């Protein structure tokens, strides 16, 4: 409680007055014999004790959940004080890689709608997510290995968008294969170094 820069509050003044009254009653026991047994006044001290007991009875939910202790990375209940990102295992070319969910851009749609489509393919249709603007946040360029290169497609550019997930429950999500919810530090264990470098630039950590 702030003691130095505050005055007494109403509750404290009441408590002080009642203490003084009690003292006076104890000193002059003979006078107040008529009043004391009859009244049952609620004292400020009693109120405080009642409140303390109520506080002790209340138990808050623990900050470190079960998923944290068992290191289950597929649940959203991990690391409640950090931001979590979705990683999905996708097949690109011949390899199966861990990536942020991506979908190929179809001509005729904006980049943001591509991102929304990617999200709906991986998380289901009824997901409420708030997209932060129309512009991409980051970029990753890579060249295809020589075997696949044709004249037009030398490589690919991956644009990244950010979105906040609004709803907590993903029970309706049809997540196939492997997916993980990871924080920024754990990303390094899953992504390639180049990819990781570019991604790290636009991901804010707490």
């Amino acid at each position: 409680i702030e003691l130095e820069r505050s005055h007494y509050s109403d509750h404290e003044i009441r408590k002080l007055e009642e203490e003084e009254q009690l003292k006076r009653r104890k000193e002059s026991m003979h006078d107040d014999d008529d009043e004391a047994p009859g009244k049952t006044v609620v004292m400020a001290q009693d109120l405080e004790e009642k409140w303390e007991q109520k506080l002790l009875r209340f138990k808050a939910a623990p900050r470190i959940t079960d998923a944290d202790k068992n290191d289950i990375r597929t649940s959203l209940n991990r690391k409640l004080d950090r931001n979590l990102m979705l990683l999905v295992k996708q097949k690109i070319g011949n390899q199966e890689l861990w990536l942020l969910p991506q979908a190929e851009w179809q001509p005729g749609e904006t980049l943001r709608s591509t991102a929304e489509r990617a999200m709906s393919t991986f998380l289901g249709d009824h997901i409420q997510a708030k997209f932060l603007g129309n512009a991409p946040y980051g970029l990753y360029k890579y060249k295809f290995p020589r075997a696949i290169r044709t004249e037009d497609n030398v490589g690919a550019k991956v644009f990244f968008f950010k979105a906040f997930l609004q709803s907590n429950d993903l029970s309706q999500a049809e997540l196939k294969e492997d997916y993980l919810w990871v924080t920024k530090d754990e990303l390094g264990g899953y992504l390639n170094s180049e990819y990781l470098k570019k991604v790290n630039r636009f991901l804010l950590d707490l």
Partner: protein
Amino acid sequence: SSWLPQLVQFRGSHWQTSLLAFKASLPMRVQPKKKKKVDIKREQAQKDRMKKKIRKLEKAAPEMIPIEDFITPPKYSDSSRVRSLPPLSFEETERRVLLMKKWSLYKQKQDEAEKKAIQTLVAAQQEALKELRLESEELYQAAIRRDDGLFPFERDGPSYTPPLPGYDPPEGKCIDITKVYTQ
């Protein structure tokens, strides 16, 4: 028999005077036979007076709405409410000064890190937009467009402990007693 007409006359005059006085003393609401011009003039004079009053009130500057947060209610400036605390010890003051220094250093580091992060963020975004422009102008224009659904942006931050499953909050009514001032 000369007194009769005298009496009648006297009564007539007496009656008349009393009647007149009687009529004049009553508050006159019905004015059936008074002249119309007097009425119009009186009413117009009344209207002008009212208009002048209205104009004066409008010209006077509007009253300031008091901000209730800045006015301390007088009952809290009583001297009986002042606490009597023992003075701070030397160790306590030393501890506080050192704590303040550490805290300011920590905050400075945090601030620097934040600014750096924002700079990298912006740089990455600019790069992405440049590359997008090289790809296709149309997509670039679509990306640059303002997103109206973004602001006002609201988001509930996390609380210190996660919500208890199956918690039943105690019921109660919330009565709003804020005072509303109109100008």
